[in-house]
């Protein structure tokens, strides 16, 4: 109970202070509301009847903005989790393979999705497929880099032990190297979870649907309150995704790794 209080109280307190301050400076007329929509306006936008933040729009199969972004961000994240680990395993399998492919893995980190977006739309199709691809591209690199770092840092003594017992590639990888890389892998996933949400929204700017489309629609109507409402929802979505990774990490590591022990 005490721990829960300690976990929740400081962030909630912080949020209240920031909200109150924002509300005050706008109400007092120090900052115009079209430059900084006050929390009360953002709340109104969030709870507006029939808003496309929640309700379906013509863009995306009649499901609400948040639901669409959540689904696509999660699927893109899943793809980068699986793909990222697979690529990291490949890279760690052989020095030559690593030399050949690692520089290109960096590509995923630096590629400006907006620039390749028109092609992404052509390759993948409008709507969800493009959004999922954007989420995956934006989030895969941290998974590759961190998992790879974990894979090549296996305790040499344990590797020798496995070699001594004539363990094959399969047992060495799945009983030793991958488990010992798990803490790194989860670090990568934590970073990827947030990036997948950003990637999804950027994807939606070009592919359509979700919170990205809501933001694009609100912009020409000077609905900054709605844009901020969408940003709040996107942040919450990121928080939920990171929390999911944390729960997973706790289950996987609590028995043996210092980072998840009290």
């Amino acid at each position, binding site marked *: 109970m005490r721990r829960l209080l300690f976990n929740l109280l400081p962030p909630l307190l912080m949020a209240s202070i920031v909200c109150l301050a924002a509300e005050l400076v706008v109400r007092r007329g120090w900052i*115009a509301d079209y430059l900084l929509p006050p929390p009360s306006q953002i709340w109104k936008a969030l709870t507006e009847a029939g808003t496309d933040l929640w309700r379906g729009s013509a863009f995306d199969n009649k499901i609400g903005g948040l639901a669409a972004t959540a689904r696509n961000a999660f699927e893109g994240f899943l793809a980068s989790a699986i793909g990222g680990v697979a690529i990291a395993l490949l890279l760690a399998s052989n020095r030559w393979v690593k030399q050949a492919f690692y520089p290109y893995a960096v590509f995923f980190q630096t590629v400006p999705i907006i620039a390749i977006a*028109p092609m992404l739309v052509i390759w993948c199709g*409008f709507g969800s497929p493009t959004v999922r691809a954007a989420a995956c591209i934006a989030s895969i690199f941290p998974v590759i880099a961190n998992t790879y770092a974990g894979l090549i840092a296996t305790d040499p003594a344990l590797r020798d032990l496995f070699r001594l017992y004539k363990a094959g590639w399969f047992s060495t990888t799945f009983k030793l190297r991958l488990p010992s890389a798990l803490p790194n892998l989860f670090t990568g996933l934590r970073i990827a979870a947030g990036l997948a949400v950003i990637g999804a929204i950027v994807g939606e700017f070009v592919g*359509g649907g979700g919170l990205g489309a809501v933001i694009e629609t609100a912009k020409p109507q*000077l609905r900054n309150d709605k844009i901020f409402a969408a940003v709040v929802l996107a942040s919450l979505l990121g928080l939920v995704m990171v929390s999911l990774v944390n729960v997973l990490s706790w289950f996987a590591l609590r028995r043996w790794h210092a980072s998840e022990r009290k």
Partner: protein
Amino acid sequence: MSKILSGLVVSLLLAGSAVADSITLQLNWKPEPQFGGFYTGQVDGIYQKNGLDVRVEPGGAGTPTVQMVAAGNVHYAVVSADEVVIARSRGIDVVALFAVYQTNPQGIMTRAARGFTDIGDIFKQPGILAMQKGLPYALFLEKKYGFGKLQIVPSPFGDLTAYRTRDNYAMQCFVTSEPLAAQKTGVEPKTFLIADSGYNPYTTVLVTTGDYLKSHQDEAGKIVTSVRDAWTKYLADPKPTNEFMQKLNPTMDTQTFADSAEAQKPLIETEETKTNGIGSMTMKRWADLIDQLADLKVIEKKPEAKDCFVEMKKE
């Protein structure tokens, strides 16, 4: 206190600032013929001749020109008439001074091979329409024609990849821009003006704030005079200014600059401007626009048409 705070926030938010003493004129897109006259004023020293030190600042996708001018970050800015009405209905005090396009240059472009003869045809058969959905004219088209048969996708903002690869694709465009590029791809375009559907706000409109106008009447008058002279000059001979703009925007080639400058002429010079002068506006058109935007529920409170613009008569 309030000035300092909002100033701080604005410079943090927008990372743009006006240099003291010089007047900033903020554009909402890259240097292209649609802003030709504003640059001619600089190239030919017309601002200078009228005792003005004007800096023309290019913009980009999503440059928040309304917010910038309202916050006092820039003195003058280019927006569209519907933005003025929306801003005013939200209590943002922007006032139009000069309207470059009498006919809205926004349109919808699709392949000529589809055989459409009227803008309404686009909505009659299944296809893809790339359009920023929140735009007032998108709402107007949806209300008038219905989007039931179309898949609406985000605007590619000038990128023609989808246009080239899909034969049932239509996209929002500036009739002075994308169709010229489309022609070069070898896929013959057909363009329809949004204005033909009945929605025709003034576009590329020079604005400032009511407050600034009150304290700078004289300067604003000189700006409008300079801009009008400069546009007249640009329409007669766009070449020197185009060369100047191309240095700022080298991705657009010389021929496209020339073609675009030619294509926009009939949208800027109309029967009305022959008598009232280039850039002039009428109460009726502002009132019509306000009614349309209220009808589309883009605005809740109707601003007064007479507050939206200030007519600076031709001398």
